[in-house]
């Protein structure tokens, strides 16, 4: 029994999951993470670095990776210990100009082998802003219905008010749980 086995067992027993938080710049990824973490969201600048936060929810340990602003994501897809269980794709619902870019990025990400099978949650963020598109329209704009390789859900939310963030996370946790921890 090597360490790899030990850690795999630990992941099972302690119900740890790994979630990657991605999206175009200025979509609000770090704001969401800070909100999750109960931190002050008044001062947020573009994420140059990367943040990992661990949170407990419904008996699961969620390790959320915010890797915004990175040129290459390859390094984050897997490492020695963990594989990625879920993707949270954050969309700026008020940014109509870049919805097409957003769609392209998302679809090119989903063909990545290392992310195969991961649960996909799309946060249609910034619903508090006037003129933001509702989830229904974002769903069409991103052509979500064509995605057959991943379980997905789109959830409108606002990182600033915190509205619907929990609903989205509830779905992510229950979807992962149904895939991985069926015996748990």
């Amino acid at each position, binding site marked *: *029994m090597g360490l790899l086995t*030990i850690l795999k067992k630990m992941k099972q027993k302690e119900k740890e999951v790994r979630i990657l938080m991605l999206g175009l710049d200025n979509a609000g990824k770090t704001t969401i993470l800070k909100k*999750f973490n*109960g931190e002050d969201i008044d001062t947020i600048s573009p994420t140059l*670095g990367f943040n990992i936060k661990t949170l*407990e929810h419904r008996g699961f340990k969620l390790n959320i990776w915010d890797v915004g602003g990175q040129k290459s994501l390859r*390094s984050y897809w897997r*490492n*020695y210990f963990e594989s990625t269980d879920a993707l949270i794709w954050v969309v700026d619902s008020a940014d109509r100009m870049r919805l097409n870019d957003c769609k392209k990025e998302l679809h090119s990400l989903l063909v990545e082998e290392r992310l195969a099978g991961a649960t996909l949650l799309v946060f249609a963020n910034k619903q508090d802003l006037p003129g933001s598109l509702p989830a229904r329209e974002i769903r069409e704009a991103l052509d979500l219905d064509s995605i057959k390789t991943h379980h997905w859900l789109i959830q409108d939310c606002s990182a600033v008010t915190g509205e619907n*963030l929990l609903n989205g996370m509830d779905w992510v946790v229950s979807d992962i749980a149904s895939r991985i921890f069926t015996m748990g």
Partner: protein
Amino acid sequence: MWETRYILLVWLSIVCLIPFDLKRLDSNLRQGDGHFKARIMDRIMAVCKTYLLVPDKSRDATAYLTSKFLIRHDVKQELLPQALEWMLQVLKDADYTTGIGCTHMCGVLAALALLFKHGKREDLLQYAPVVLRVTLDAKLEECDSCVIRKLVGKLIQRLGLTFLKFRVAAWRYQRGSRSLVVNLGAGAASVTLGAGSNTIQAVDEDDEIEVPDEIEEIIEHMLVYLKDKETIVRWTSAKGIGRVTGQLPRELADDVVGSVLELFSYQESDGAWHGGCLALAELGRRGLLLPERLKDVVPVIVKALSYDEKRGNFSVGAHVRDAACYVCWAFARAYEPKEMVPYVDQIASCLIIASVFDREVNVRRAAAAAFQENVGRQGTFPHGIDILTTVDYFAVGNRARCYLELSVFVANFKDYTHSVIDHLADVKIAHWDSTVRELSAKALHRLTPCDPEYMASTVLPKLLPLSAGSDLFLRHGAILGIAEIIHALYSIAQSKDMPLEKLLSSEIIEGIQSISSKLHEEKMFKRHGGEFMRTSVCCLIEKCSLSKLPFHGKPVIDLWQSVIDECLTHIETDIQAAAVSAIPAFFSEYYIKPDGSVIKEKQDAILSTYLHELKSSNQATRQGHSLALGAFPKAMLEGNLSKVMSGLITVATITERDEKMAEARRDAIKALSSVCMTVSVETNGDPDRVVCKDNVKVIYEALLQAMKDYTLDSRGDIGAWTREASMQALHDISSLIVKVDSSLLPPNICKQVFCSLVQQALEKIDRTRCLAGILFTKLLYHRPPLPYIPHEQEVKAILPESAVFGTNFSAESDTYPLFSKLLALPEYAYSVLLGLVVSVGGITESIVSTVSCGQCWGHH
């Protein structure tokens, strides 16, 4: 069928969960013999007693069943005491040196461990002392079975937890609030969803906790198991120490941490270090290692990250280093960035060094992952993101790439330059694996531009005395390192257009000059490990020559020459190769005057020795000197080409006396070819200087003759080596000649070249056939073209240029049908037949069947 029993037992354990009294299921009817049927409770107990003692897998299910059964409300009152008594009796009676004793103990220990895990504290507390006593008295830590030791580890930690009242240690280190629901609580409406999170209140006063005397004994034993020789036992114990420590008052818990830290001494085994790392990670993960202790823990982890204990020509410690990475990973998750700040630089350097330079891929990956986790959670690691996106899981997979590319990338960050260089020069250069030492030396070469000054004034003076030290590995690595650094410094000096002496002090140059003589005086070349000394000194000779060190005419040159000469007669081809590789640079620098002319005495002396050695009765000597002649620079061959060629051709020719020396013939052919490449072609030149019309015929005759070498010995068709070398030579030399003057190649030579290649392309050895196929097509479509190709049009139709490059010439099904078509062309017919006949007589079924099938023969 144990599977059936296993499932039935598991099923029974589920039945045990029924909430009402088992008595209700008992029948009160008399059986046929007039007795009542046995009670359900007793029947289940009987099953437990029976199957706890069997040697198969169903014992595991029974252990589970027993634990679940005995903690039932009704059973624990009636049967628990006697069941425990029975189990303890089994433990006392069993003899673990016998197979059956082991089996019995495993069953009972597993059942007890699960019982104390699942049972309620207040039910079991009264029995805990006696169970502990019996278990410890059995002295199972000396038992050979690691399963038993693991189970004891599990049992005593559960006993420990039973002795202590459950609580969440108030003194535990916590990093912020971690509940998503609570954190979102202020904004979200759905707070009510929050369930299952930790709601047990911490007990504030440590003083109120009673710690029974047994705890100390238990922890003592757990610490013994923590250094067990088996990983599973150490891991169980590490988890146990984590769990028990969580229930202790702060003072005692800190004592445990202290005891774990004592394991990290070089008197302890590698197992102790590994166990210690696992325990530290467990304690850290649970918040039981308080930040105040980090100042003691971090130095230990730093040592563990480079733990490597030599055991003869291998070492142990990869698991320790791997576990140390796990500690770093766990600490990244456990502490607030502000707690880690004082240690960040140290941990960051160590992790980077491990992820780039560890010998084992799993440790490199573990270290890279730990680094990533630290960057993500601590955020304070210097240049963290740049490094982690380059030095990632995928990149660290290839060791050569790590040493030669990633190291340079990392060292370009000023924070890491010196720690990277120092690690290579202090540690890896003395590694037990020669590949690692060689890679380290090459890495030092590449790292020199990062800080030439440091290399010249700090690293070289440090390495110089080591080059004649007592440790063989260190000597080897140090000499290689010095050679590589000198060469790198020379390149830097060149690019800046300044003399090397500006970078290197005269003491250093003096020191380098004396390395070889010191080794010679100490007879290091003759002693154990002399091979390493020879190869490293050959490397030193090569690099010093390339760096033009001012040793011209000094005694060291003669010493070097004798080292090279000795290597050329060595039986190991690696050592010969090292010498051969040093020759061009060495001769060019020290035997050729600045005007390009050669020092005549040297040339004559060396040539006459080498040509004489070609006639040696020792095959290795012939090989070494052939290859050496092949490596001579042009000036050294000047005026003596005919002698050299005829010497090599003599080696390449089969005679009765040296029939089995196929390797020597192969190397002579290779050398002949490279001599031709060195001197190049002049149509009307002097046959003692260049390839010309007067010696072309001799060369080709020798090569074509070598194509007929079909020598066999116990290793099989060893002549194939000669034939392959000859094919390559035919291709290379022909290619060289046609670029100068294709009229030098008469049609009959061309014909023979093509025919012999075709014959080889129908050979039975895949490797030979593949080479022949590739070379044939290369010559067929050579630019500029060869002067004569038999049946050029037809051959090109059969092997069109576009198709050729998609053909897999090593697959018989591809090549035979293609080349056997040439049977229809008169000039090739004989060679095709010859090739096919040799192959059909072969022993490989797939070849015989492809060759015999109609595709090859039928339609002609």
